[in-house]
């Protein structure tokens, strides 16, 4: 994990999200995130962790306050600018959102074509992306032939098509057993080690605690705790997982989307 000194990479400034008079998503939270951080947002259902991430992808707009990313006020963006915003980040949904009639490589290629890549370009890059998420060997499989963990890998691969510097995952292990949860976390950790800022909403306390990264706990739309563990990069050195869900050294380095150099870190 390479964290820069700029604490204002992402800024939430007294942000309130109100869905209706009775439903409050976020109750005036303030928060700073540095570039290159790996941050967990934890809390019960309805605590506001998903709302917080959706403010960054502009699936939700704040009722008051400001949300800044790289100094840009996301609340000021027009609807027309939202696709361009999302092309700069990777979004991983909880339910994988894979196309069942398309093979693994076609799922990724489809997303690439949708954002303007040519057929040739998509064909060339898909193999590379699938290797990054360690699913290249299942490129010709259909989603129903994959385990939950493998499907989530494909979803993460698809989120990487735009070479994002920010990866947002909403409950990425919500549908997975502990073993596959660790596989996914290991993959996210590798991406983070190579410079990608990773924000994860999760209610999987065991996984969060073992990752030992910054963890922000939310309750009723407010930040309850914000733990900054004194973490050395060594904590995240490839540990992998074993059957019991302990880290055990599964994956290799992630090269193609290395953001360290561009940060000058």
């Amino acid at each position: 994990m390479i964290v820069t000194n700029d604490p204002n990479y992402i800024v939430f400034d007294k942000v309130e999200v109100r869905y209706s008079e009775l439903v409050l998503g976020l109750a005036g939270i303030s928060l700073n995130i540095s570039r290159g951080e790996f941050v967990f947002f934890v809390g019960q259902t309805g605590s506001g962790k998903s709302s917080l991430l959706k403010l960054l992808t502009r699936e939700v707009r704040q009722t008051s306050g400001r949300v800044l990313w790289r100094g840009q006020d996301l609340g000021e963006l027009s609807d027309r600018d939202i696709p361009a915003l999302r092309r700069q980040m990777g979004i991983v949904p909880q339910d994988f959102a894979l196309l069942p009639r398309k093979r693994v490589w076609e799922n990724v290629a489809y997303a690439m074509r949708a954002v303007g890549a040519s057929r040739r370009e998509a064909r060339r890059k898909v193999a590379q992306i699938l290797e990054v998420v360690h699913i290249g060997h299942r490129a010709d499989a259909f989603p129903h032939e994959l385990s939950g963990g493998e499907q989530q890998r494909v979803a993460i691969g698809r989120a990487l098509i735009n070479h994002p510097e920010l990866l947002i995952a909403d409950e990425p292990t919500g549908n997975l057993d502990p073993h596959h949860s660790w596989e996914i976390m290991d993959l996210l950790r590798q991406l983070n080690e190579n410079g990608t800022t990773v924000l994860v909403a999760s209610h999987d306390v065991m996984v969060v605690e073992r990752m030992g990264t910054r963890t922000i706990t939310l309750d009723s739309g407010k930040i309850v705790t914000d733990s900054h563990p004194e973490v050395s990069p060594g904590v995240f050195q490839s540990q992998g997982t074993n059957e019991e869900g302990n880290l055990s050294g599964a994956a290799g380095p992630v090269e193609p989307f290395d953001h360290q150099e561009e940060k000058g870190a």
Partner: protein
Amino acid sequence: MLDRIEFLISEAFTALRRNGLMTFAAVTTAAASLFLLGGLGYVYYRVSGFTANVSSKFEIDVFMRMDLPRPQALDAAARIKALPGVRNVTLLPKEQAWKEWQEKLNLSPEGIDNPLPDKLKVMLNDPTKADALASSIQLMPEVYQPRGVEYSKDAQRLIDLMMSLVRWLGLACGGVLFLTAGILIHNAIRLTVIARRREIRIMQLVGASYSTIWIPFVIEGMIQGMIGGFLAAFLLWAAQGGIQRFIEGITSQIAFPPFPLWTIVGLLSATGAIYGFFCSAFAVREPLRQVIGALR
């Protein structure tokens, strides 16, 4: 650019395939409505040509008062010519008319005074205005009373009826079917949006532009309308051929002009495509907003 167009079109064809039954319903209804509209339009066009031909021969005879001096008859002719719907007016002097009668009936004029008045032959631009013109001419003081105006009311009424029938039948039947086709195209597109909500969601997640999401649906609607128009043109061609053979079997008096097949194909396909564009563009707005909203 070509690659992007290919992607958008392939998305549209995927949707057409996946939503086969609704596509079939939309295309056949569009074809039926365009067949009726196009067919009635074609008949109307032909009947208009026919009536224009008839109207050039259509005239009203106006008999002047027996004692009317010639200058006043000429003055009345000038005033009639100025009326709207009148193409030309010619005076048939009573002397000439009497001479023609004698020749026609082989009469000897000796001892018989000319019993005929001066007559005006009024030729019309539009035979459907004959009734109104006849009434106003009859009111002129120079005209023989009480019945100084004569014309073929039956022929005029037949033409009038035929034109009205074609016009209203075309508007009513074609209009209802056209609307039905529009609703079906609209529904087909709405169903497609729902059927493809997963693809739409993925496009949203990775930041595809709104046009990338929107355009395939509009292309799909245009293709449905265009195929409908194409089929309608060939249906029309077949129907016209059948009617032509049927009439030629009865009489050889009526000559049929050649059917402009490719002009009709172009016209109806273009009409269908434009109609499909508007129907689908309208249809895609709300469900797309709902599907995108469901992401949030």
